[in-house]
């Protein structure tokens, strides 16, 4: 179970992430996108989900990642991501509730480039009973 005291906490990613052209190319290839100059709109989920996993499974937060399903997802893109971008990610647990034994956690992530937010993403994650 998630520690309820975690709600409202913001976790700052310590390491910066450098985006490579090859990872954009690989993502584009899956969806048949031939324009690889900017990343597709959902590309940054590869950063966001791994950051969420790292933050939410810390012992003092306590989310069980193994029974997780993705409930919904939203992106706001202020500036498209490109190869060479150096990004940092922070994540905030915005809400938490338990319904029929399922834990429902809403988390927000902000990806920053040189101090400006480039992509904000909201995920609802459900830990199945």
């Amino acid at each position, binding site marked *: 179970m998630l520690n309820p005291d975690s709600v409202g906490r913001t976790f700052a990613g310590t390491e910066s992430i450098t985006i490579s052209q090859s990872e954009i190319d690989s*993502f584009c290839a899956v969806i048949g996108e031939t*324009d690889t100059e*900017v990343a597709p*709109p959902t590309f940054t989920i590869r950063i966001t*989900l791994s950051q969420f996993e790292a933050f939410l499974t810390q012992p003092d937060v306590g989310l069980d990642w193994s029974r997780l399903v993705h409930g919904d*997802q939203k*992106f*706001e893109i202020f500036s498209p991501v490109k190869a060479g971008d150096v990004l940092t990610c922070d994540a905030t647990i915005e809400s938490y509730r338990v319904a029929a034994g399922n834990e429902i956690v809403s988390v927000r992530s902000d990806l920053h480039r040189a101090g400006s937010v480039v992509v904000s993403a909201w995920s609802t994650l459900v830990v199945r009973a």
Partner: protein
Amino acid sequence: MIEVGTVLSEKVFYLDRALLKQYADASGDQNPIHQNEEFALSVGLPNVIAHGMLTMALVGKYVSDFAGGSANVLEYGARFVKPVIVPAGEKVDLTVCATISEIEDGKISLTLSATSAGVKVLGMAKAVIRK
């Protein structure tokens, strides 16, 4: 002519197990429910299912195409209401369509629909693009 209520052309994507593996490698999401049938069945799923984010990425491609490129996609969100089920050796459809819901200040809002085998897989799917 694009106006509120205009229905855009439908597009069909096809998913198979190879595409799920390719997405797992491209996204880093190696959850076995998207690759291993025995595992998927063991956790109560009907079969291997596509990553919700793969479905969303393909619908995102539809949005990018209409927007004239990924750089013109400003907002995009969806709820995962049903999984896309991908049996071994099959290609399953992901059928995508959209309706223009708002036009304002150089921005166009789309309401998206996505079905697989006739079942709605995304709910509340919306995008805002710059046009």
